């Protein structure tokens, strides 16, 4: 049977792979997309169930998905099983790797918060002398951000803040300016802290995924084939040219070994899976940096308070509800002197009901507290920048293989003093704001979750102009292999406090247009 031939082979069908397919096929380029997992059917694969109908009453199957704090017994079957595809980490250095292998990847379930990076991130080294600059600037990224924002239908309020670049926002309703929100805003402004609101992608029907926004258009061109259940094990090279010529993969059901060929290979398997593929293939690593500089954002540090006037069912309409979003405000001046560099954002919501764990009580006493505090709470957390460090890395663990016989990753990442001092500052700042607003503090914690928890793993194939200091060039193309691209979060140089997906999408769009130009010019 003659095999179909393709211009580009894309590994992964999430946001990054979906964008690559969308852009390339729109320019008449034929693509084969391989995805490790199956297609989920939102009708057939979901049933309504009461918690008591589940085997563990909704408390979750013990020992399953121990690193996926986001997993519930309801959604357990959507995450990658840690037994089927394990990874390892040190006893004292936990790492939470949160994966989805369905077609669409994590774009099926993401929370859609969408922020641009600013030049405080793209040119971070210029600002404080630490680390590396990106090979791109906000000005270069701006047109791509705008197009992605229009595809995702990102809503937001324009602020004119350099650390929080405005976007091409869809129209949206204003958030309620309740008494609680006004008091928080006033408390922040007293400290010179700018207050904004959340920016998020509306998508279609609350879904801003590759499966509804990117892949249907690509399929409609007739230029895209998607093969599901194709677990890629390595990228193959042409012995004569040293160029990539395809991949080897395993059929997830039959376990038959297969090979696929194309003129160009684009990796979009998610930061750590693309990295694992490169390491297992032993390619594109003349810099020795594949797997290095792994970072994310630190989450977890939390302060919860209550608005006394809103307790015991006394909240009147307009008193509490709605949220505020405080973008980075620390270390914006070049000379700022603190015990940490970079900064964090504070997302805050008001009008929630407290968790029982905040109260040292039980029985009737606990129930009375919960009834009294219901709807009166203010909850804030941290989106904190994590410094990229050479030591924080992922490597192959040759002793452990997954269910397909593919060697797994060992992740070695920890936060340092900069992160700890930043989290302390965030907790103290939230406490001050709450007190100033007249709220009663219920709990305050400056401890953060293990690395990986934010599901924003980044770095490990960073881009740059210097092939000795980076894995990819400024177009997400391997310095070593000129027909190999990596278009997911592994290309990041720094991450700031911002949730990364808008930037992943903008970079993938930009890289794919460049690749299309190269193909047209016969350069690859």
């Amino acid at each position, binding site marked *: 049977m003659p095999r179909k031939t393709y211009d580009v082979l894309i590994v992964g069908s999430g946001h990054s792979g979906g964008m690559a397919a969308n852009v390339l096929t729109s320019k008449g380029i034929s693509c084969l997309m391989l995805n490790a997992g199956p297609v989920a059917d939102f009708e057939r*694969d979901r049933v309504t169930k*009461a918690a*008591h109908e589940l085997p563990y009453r909704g408390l979750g199957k*013990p020992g399953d998905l121990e690193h996926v704090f986001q997993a519930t017994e309801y959604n357990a079957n959507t995450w990658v099983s840690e037994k089927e595809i394990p990874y390892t980490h040190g006893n004292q250095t936990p790492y939470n790797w949160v994966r989805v292998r369905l077609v669409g990847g994590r774009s099926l379930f993401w929370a859609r918060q969408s922020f641009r990076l600013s030049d405080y991130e793209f040119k971070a080294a210029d600002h404080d002398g630490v680390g590396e600059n990106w090979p791109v600037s906000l000005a270069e990224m701006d047109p791509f951000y705008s197009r992605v924002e229009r595809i995702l239908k990102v809503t937001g309020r324009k602020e004119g803040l350099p650390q929080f670049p405005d976007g091409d926002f869809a129209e949206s309703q204003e958030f309620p300016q309740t008494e609680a929100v006004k008091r928080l805003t006033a408390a922040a402004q007293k400290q010179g802290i700018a207050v904004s609101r959340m920016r998020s992608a509306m998508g279609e029907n609350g879904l801003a995924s590759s499966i509804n926004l990117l892949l249907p258009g690509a399929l409609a061109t007739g230029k895209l084939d998607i093969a599901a259940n194709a677990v890629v094990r390595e990228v193959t090279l042409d012995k004569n040219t040293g160029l990539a010529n395809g991949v080897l993969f395993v059929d997830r059901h039959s376990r038959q070994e297969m090979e696929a060929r194309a003129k160009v290979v684009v990796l979009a398997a998610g930061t750590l899976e693309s990295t694992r593929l490169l390491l297992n293939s032993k390619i594109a690593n003349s810099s020795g940096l594949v797997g290095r500089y792994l970072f994310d954002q630190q989450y977890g540090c939390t302060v919860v308070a209550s608005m006394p006037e809103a307790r015991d069912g006394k909240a009147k309409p307009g008193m509490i509800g709605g949220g505020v979003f405080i973008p980075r405000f620390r270390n914006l001046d070049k000379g700022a002197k603190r015990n940490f560099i970079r900064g964090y954002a504070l997302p805050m919501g008001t009008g929630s009901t407290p968790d*029982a764990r905040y109260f040292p009580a*039980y029985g009737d006493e606990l129930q009375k507290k919960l009834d009294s505090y219901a709807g009166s709470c203010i909850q804030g957390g941290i989106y904190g920048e994590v410094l990229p460090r050479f030591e924080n890395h992922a490597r192959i663990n040759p002793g452990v293989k997954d269910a397909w016989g593919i060697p797994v990753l060992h992740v070695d990442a920890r936060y340092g003093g900069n992160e700890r001092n930043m989290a302390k500052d965030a907790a103290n700042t939230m406490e001050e704001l709450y007190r100033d607003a007249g709220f009663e503090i219920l*709990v305050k914690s400056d401890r953060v979750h293990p690395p990986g928890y934010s599901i924003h793993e980044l770095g490990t194939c960073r881009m740059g102009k210097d092939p000795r200091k980076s894995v990819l060039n400024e177009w997400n193309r391997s310095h070593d292999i000129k027909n190999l691209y990596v278009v997911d979060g592994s290309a990041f140089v720094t991450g700031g406090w911002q949730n990364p997906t808008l930037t992943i999408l903008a970079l993938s769009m930009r890289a794919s247009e460049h690749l299309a130009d190269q193909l047209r010019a016969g350069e690859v």
Partner: protein
Amino acid sequence: MKRRRLLQAIAASPAAAPALLAQGPGSRLGQAGTAPARIATVPAGEAATPAPRFFSPIQLETLRKLAATLMPPLNGNPGAIEAGVPEFLDFLAGSSPAARQKLYRAGLDHLEAEAKRLHAKSFPSLEDGQIDAILKPMLAPWTYDPPADPRKHFLAAARADIRAATLNSREWAAAASSAPSRRRRGGGGTVGLYWLPIDPTRPA
């Protein structure tokens, strides 16, 4: 009979097919409209009671007393005992990794040891006030990371598990549906979309 006619006759006659294909599928389920009516079943939990097998008898009695204290029946809703929570937690802990098993066993043993030390009695036979005097110092508010002290950690975990297992019980759901106004008080009765295994594959 022509061969084709013979095959048609075999397909049409339910008796003939099994005789010819003795080990073949004996029904015509492949044909549309022939599926038999679904057989009705009841959940095992409605027809039988759990047989605890993880905790020792005294640990289970201690857990019963603890569950009754932390989550008594309130506002007409069932409490942890009515919701079968101690037996459920025996199952949950018994299926859990070693860390949770140790946390629960050591925590329950500690309560019993404290009861013996302070009152020369078993924990389940203590008065309410005596129980409060043991439990209250072990309580600590927390957000994501449970308290580092193993006894406080145990009480934090047990309190959360007992509460969730009560609110998510069949008994709670039944009480809430018989008096919907009660449902709002204390939450519980979660109903949600459950993801079935998606195109599962069998291990090699």
